[in-house]
């Protein structure tokens, strides 16, 4: 049956709309990427002459180097602590009934609704009070609060998908609760744990708003260092740094997906 002209037009319009939306989504990243290769010392699009020199400059800039190191320190501590705390709470919330369960869950997830600058400001006031305002502790603590909801959700979903009969089977075969946890529950949760940790690490690495309040010159993270840089300069080294950011994160996620997401390594049974 021949499609009417109207239907054909609708089809073309739909395709165009989808392409436009996709284009719009990747537009900022594309513009910044192109701007990073501009030879001139201005952030402009599209560039007229091409160069790698802003990448070299970004890599050599002291504040960026120390910022990157600080960010890595903060991200690894914050995501690891959040993973421990989040897993414990996810287990408790999934397995046990206790008073104030929903209140506790709401408090743990509250940083999703409280603005980041509020959390940052709060930590700054507290830290100043006890004289910790210049250290890493407050930055890490702040980031733990910010990324905890994501870890919690990620582990919680994995727990929901875990067939509890596997744990019962292990118990019937003589495994004590601790050994069930070690040999069945945790290994099967591993993709969720790694996924949660990775998500937390990336969020922490990218976090800017709250970090602006709680970092000092010595502890400033990469996003804060970048912000300080653009306040004074407007050359493409910012864009070059952004490109490196994108490439690093994308690589990390691709590797993680290849090894964990597809369930090959963990032999998670495919759904039938």
């Amino acid at each position, binding site marked *: 049956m021949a499609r009417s002209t109207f239907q054909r037009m609708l089809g073309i319009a739909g395709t165009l709309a989808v392409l436009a939306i996709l284009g719009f989504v990747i537009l900022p990243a594309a513009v910044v990427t192109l701007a990073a290769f501009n030879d001139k010392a201005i952030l402009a699009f599209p560039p007229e002459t091409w160069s790698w020199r802003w990448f070299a400059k970004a890599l050599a800039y002291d504040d960026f180097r120390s910022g990157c190191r600080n960010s890595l320190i903060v991200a690894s501590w914050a995501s690891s602590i959040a993973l421990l705390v989040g897993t414990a709470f996810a287990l408790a919330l999934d397995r046990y009934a206790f008073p104030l369960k929903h209140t506790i869950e709401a408090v743990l997830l509250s940083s999703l609704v409280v603005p980041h600058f509020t959390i940052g400001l709060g930590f700054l006031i507290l830290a100043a009070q006890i004289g910790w305002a210049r250290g890493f502790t407050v930055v890490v603590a702040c980031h733990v609060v910010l990324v905890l909801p994501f870890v919690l959700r990620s582990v919680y979903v994995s727990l929901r998908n875990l067939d509890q009969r596997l744990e019962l089977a292990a*118990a019937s075969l003589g495994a004590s609760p601790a050994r069930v946890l070690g040999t069945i529950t945790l290994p099967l949760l591993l993709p969720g744990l790694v996924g949660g940790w990775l998500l937390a690490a990336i969020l922490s690495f990218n976090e800017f708003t709250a970090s602006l309040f709680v970092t000092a010159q010595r502890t400033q993270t990469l996003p804060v260092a970048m912000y300080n840089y653009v306040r004074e300069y407007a050359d493409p080294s910012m864009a070059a740094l952004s490109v490196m950011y994108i490439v690093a994160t994308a690589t990390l996620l691709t590797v993680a997906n290849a090894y964990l997401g597809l369930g090959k390594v963990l032999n998670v049974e495919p759904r039938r």
Partner: protein
Amino acid sequence: MSSLAAERRSEGCSRAPAPAGFDDAAVRLLGASKRFGEITALEDARLSIRRGELMTLLGPSGCGKTTLLNLVAGFHVADSGEIEIDGKLVNDIPTYKREIGMMFQSYALFPHMSIADNVGYGLRMRGIAKPDLKRRVAEALSLVRLTGVEERRPHQLSGGQQQRVALARALVISPKVLLLDEPFSALDRNLRASMQIEIKEIQRQIGVTTIFVTHDQGEALSLSDRIAVMFEGRIRQVGTPDEIYRRPADRFVASFVGDVNVLRGRLDRVDGQTIVTLGAARISVPREPLARVQSGDRVDIFVRPEQLRFANAGEPIAVEGTVAAHIYQGGYVNLYLEAPEVCTSRILVRSLEPDAINRWPTGARVGVSIAGSDAMAFEAEPAPQSV
């Protein structure tokens, strides 16, 4: 712990279940009850399972059979009553110390472990040394006739193979009792029949006390040494398959196990004998279910399809009806009769005659007589139910 291989060698002398000595019970439930909130899942369950016996818990979903199994496994704790395994009270003993072997409906194989690691799991938890462990895993896998898959993962095996792994995993630890939770429901029909035979053989061979949960009465009749029929949280009758089928204790058991016709008749007590009348037929029935019924009162007579047959000349006709439908089944033909005055639904008659469809065509008026002595009668229900 006795090795499976040693027990296999004694294959010839299949172990019959021990006689009903109460002391020889492998598993006993003494008035076990379990409630979930408002719902009573199991009430006052009393059951003694003999050593080496295959006891089936049969009933529709929600009857409490799985709850009973979970109490024995230790997945639930009884609210009241006692549970004994091997003469020892286990109410407060956690699952992992109960020495049970359980096969789950979904098999619950560990997806992140190889087949060998799955089967050896229970042995590792018991600290069995590696060479011994390897030998026993191999023995268990050969017992269930599954070799050469040790290094594979569960999802690489077929449903039947997964079931064999689950069985091997449960048996390798020489459990005091083997618990089977609807083990065949995930298999297709052909595979189901052959797995049933095989599991029954293995169970006989190694003589492990087994509790088997199912809602399939055919499965229960063919596999069990004894059956406990359950309904609404209570055990309604415990007996051999033959006792359950031929002497059901109540209406529920009679209609849940096997096909049955419920026909309206009258009680007619004669010199201590309990007789029910149906048409011109007089049928002797057990008296216990009719203890409260007066002579001349209405009763419901439960007759199996194979006890009905088309009356020859001169035989007393119990029911006269009209042939409404035939279902050809190869070896036999199911004929459905309509006789509204004695049965609210259609009466099922099973005929072995290959020519039945032509001899008794649809619409024909036929007389049916009752053969054999296995009819049961129960107090009539206010509104006669169809079964």
